[in-house]
């Protein structure tokens, strides 16, 4: 207390008093005040402290709306700008692994549109090749682009080199199967040398590199990375997406081996693992060599089969013909075939033949055989086949045309008409015919010669016709001559009746029509017939031989027959 009094009296405060006073003023204990002082005096510690608070503070500020993102953007933009200006390669290296996929995606979309546009353009192409492809597209129902690409893409990636960019040393090499070995190290180095040469010669940008070298059908595609390059030796025309594979490979190599690449001192063993990134680039795509159907072989086969088929057909046809002919001879009346055989391309028939049977050549012709295709060794015999017996009977008996002969089971059947003389001949000779044991003449009638005369008279009388004018019954000179003949025929008929005790009469038919008064017409017609009968009676024809008859003409077109008189012979 005394000490405090002394300090107060001296105007000075002790350290303890000052601390007490600080605590009273700030409300903070001594350690807290000490920490604050440290933060104020040590920037590093202050920065550490602030770094813990700053993200939270910024978030709070953004949430409160005190600070907008737009307010912070300039700082970041300036930072990035300064970084790029200072060392653009660094940022490029950092972004390299992620830029590739992003760029590819964008490029892929553009490429797609470009291809579609290209397709449209090409679709209008009218070169013969394009027209051929178009036809293929049409017939295969594929898109034109697909056809075009199938013709364009035929390639094989033969080698993939991973080359250290700075030293040009080969880090890893992959080659396709069945591809010859090459001096990969030297090739890789020379490849880099060529790249250097091009760059130096044409003053290209240091980071630029040769992307494509094409020599004939061989393409060299190179994809550059910051520390390494991938080079692909491709035979043929590689598709654009191979470039994407190469990009992915070089990106994967950088992503996984960046430290190894940066500190590369010549040890390449570590890059053996890059095989898994490079091997997918060893692509090959052949034309869709759908095997064309072996048209030629098929044609030849078809030809052979057709030939064989034809020969078989010919053979079968020949056999069918031969069988048909053989069968025909076996069935032919008058033949008895005991054996057939083929000799020297000819068909030989052995057996018996009736002399009345048809000649073999006739039968062969019916079956389209030439005469020289068959040889016949046939001995004569008497056939009892019905047709042969009939032939034999006809030959032996010479029946008149009105007689028909048939034969069955040893019986010769004669039908039709014949004279009594031939019937006598038949009875006397039928047994001389081989095969005929008995005779049947039930249906054979003897011809009556007198009846034949009557037929003549009937026909003659019926042929006369007299036409008169209306209400007239007067014959002109011509009619007088006919009338005279008619009376002569009537006299013959009368004689025939008397000779043969027959009652044939002559109907004198007067023709009229039903037009008008039918009764009157009939009366007139009857009167005309009777009047004409009167003429005949006057000429001496017996009355019992005549009768009058009216006939109606139903056909009005035959007007001339009306008022005519005609004749018919009938049995009374």
């Amino acid at each position, binding site marked *: 207390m005394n000490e405090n009094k002394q300090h107060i009296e001296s105007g000075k405060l002790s350290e303890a008093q000052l601390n007490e006073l600080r605590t009273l003023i700030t409300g903070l204990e001594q350690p807290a005040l000490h920490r604050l002082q440290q933060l104020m005096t040590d920037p590093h510690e202050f920065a550490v402290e602030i770094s813990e608070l700053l993200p939270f503070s910024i978030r709070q500020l953004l949430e409160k709306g005190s600070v907008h993102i737009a307010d912070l953007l300039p700082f970041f933009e300036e930072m990035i700008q300064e970084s790029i200006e200072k060392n653009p390669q660094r940022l490029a290296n950092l972004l390299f692994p992620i830029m590739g996929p992003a760029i590819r995606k964008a490029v892929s979309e553009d490429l797609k549109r470009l291809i579609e546009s290209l397709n449209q353009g090409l679709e209008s192409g009218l070169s013969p090749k394009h027209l051929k492809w178009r036809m293929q597209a049409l017939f295969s129902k594929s898109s034109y682009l697909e056809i075009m690409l199938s013709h364009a893409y035929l390639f094989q990636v033969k080698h993939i080199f991973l080359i250290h960019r700075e*030293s*040009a*040393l080969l880090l890893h090499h992959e080659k396709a199967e069945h591809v010859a070995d090459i001096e990969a*190290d*030297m090739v890789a*180095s020379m490849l880099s*040398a060529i790249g250097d*040469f091009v760059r130096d010669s044409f003053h290209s940008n240091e980071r630029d590199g040769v992307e494509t070298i094409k020599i004939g059908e061989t393409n060299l595609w190179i994809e550059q990375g910051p520390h390494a390059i991938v080079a692909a030796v491709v035979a043929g025309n590689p598709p654009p997406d191979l470039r994407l594979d190469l990009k992915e490979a070089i990106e994967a190599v950088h992503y996984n081996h960046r430290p190894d690449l940066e500190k590369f001192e*010549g*040890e390449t063993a570590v890059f053996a693992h890059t095989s898994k990134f490079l091997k997918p680039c060893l692509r090959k795509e052949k034309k869709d060599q759908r095997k064309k159907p072996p048209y030629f072989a098929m044609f030849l086969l078809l030809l052979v089969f057709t030939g064989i088929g034809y020969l078989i057909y010919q053979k079968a046809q020949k056999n069918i013909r031969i069988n048909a002919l053989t069968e025909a001879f076996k069935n032919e009346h008058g033949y008895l075939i005991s054996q057939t055989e083929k000799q020297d391309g000819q068909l030989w028939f052995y057996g018996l033949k009736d002399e009345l049977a048809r000649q073999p050549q006739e039968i062969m012709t019916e079956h389209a055989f030439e005469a020289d295709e068959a040889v016949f060794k046939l001995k004569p015999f008497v056939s009892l086949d019905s047709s042969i017996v009939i032939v034999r009977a006809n030959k032996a008996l010479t029946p008149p045309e009105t007689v028909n002969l048939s034969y069955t089971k040893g019986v010769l059947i004669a039908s039709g008409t014949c004279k009594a003389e031939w019937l006598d001949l038949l009875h006397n000779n039928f047994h001389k015919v081989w095969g005929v044991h008995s005779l049947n003449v039930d249906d054979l009638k003897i011809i009556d010669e007198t009846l034949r005369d009557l037929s003549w008279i009937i026909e003659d009388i019926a042929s006369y016709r007299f036409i008169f004018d209306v209400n007239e019954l007067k014959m002109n000179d011509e009619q007088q001559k006919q009338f005279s003949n008619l009376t002569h025929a009537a006299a013959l008929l009368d004689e025939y009746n008397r000779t043969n005790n027959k009652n044939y009469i002559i109907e004198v038919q007067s023709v009229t029509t039903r037009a008008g008064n039918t009764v009157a017409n009939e009366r007139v017609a009857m009167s005309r017939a009777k009047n004409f009968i009167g003429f005949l009676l006057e000429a001496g024809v017996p009355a019992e031989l005549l009768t009058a008859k009216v006939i109606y003409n139903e056909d009005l077109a035959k007007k001339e027959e009306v008022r005519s008189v005609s004749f018919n012979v009938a049995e009374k």
Partner: protein
Amino acid sequence: MIKKKIAMVGAFAVGKTSLVQRFVRSIFSEKYQTTIGVKIDQKEVHINGEDVTLLLWDIHGEDDFMKVKPTYLIGSSGYFLVADGTRADTYDTALKLHEMASSVTKNAPFILLINKSDLQDTWEITENQIENLIQQDWQIIYTSAKEGTNVEDAFVQLTQSMLQNQ
């Protein structure tokens, strides 16, 4: 497998190609040197139980018409400077090329090969000149492309230096 890139530089016609012709595997003709200015050869050496593949960039000799392209030296782990003992000017060219090569390769190991040791009587490069370089810690080997003298040894020594420099 260790691989190293070695550049071979020197004046025109000092015998760079002849020097290595019998000792390396080559698939490219010399026309590449006159076209793109370099041809690549390969040399295998076995050092300290380890196989080392050397890719030898035989760079076109510098003359009035064609300068050595520094690009070809980038990434080299070592290089040979080649001079013709019978031509004094090749010594100067070697020194000049060394300045460039040292810079491009970031002070990579190198050996000065003074060729045509079989004609040492007619050398124009003096012993003083050589001594001067030795004092600057230059490694110098006399070689003869014609007789094959020290060629193999030169590769081994440079490779050892490169491996030590890793």
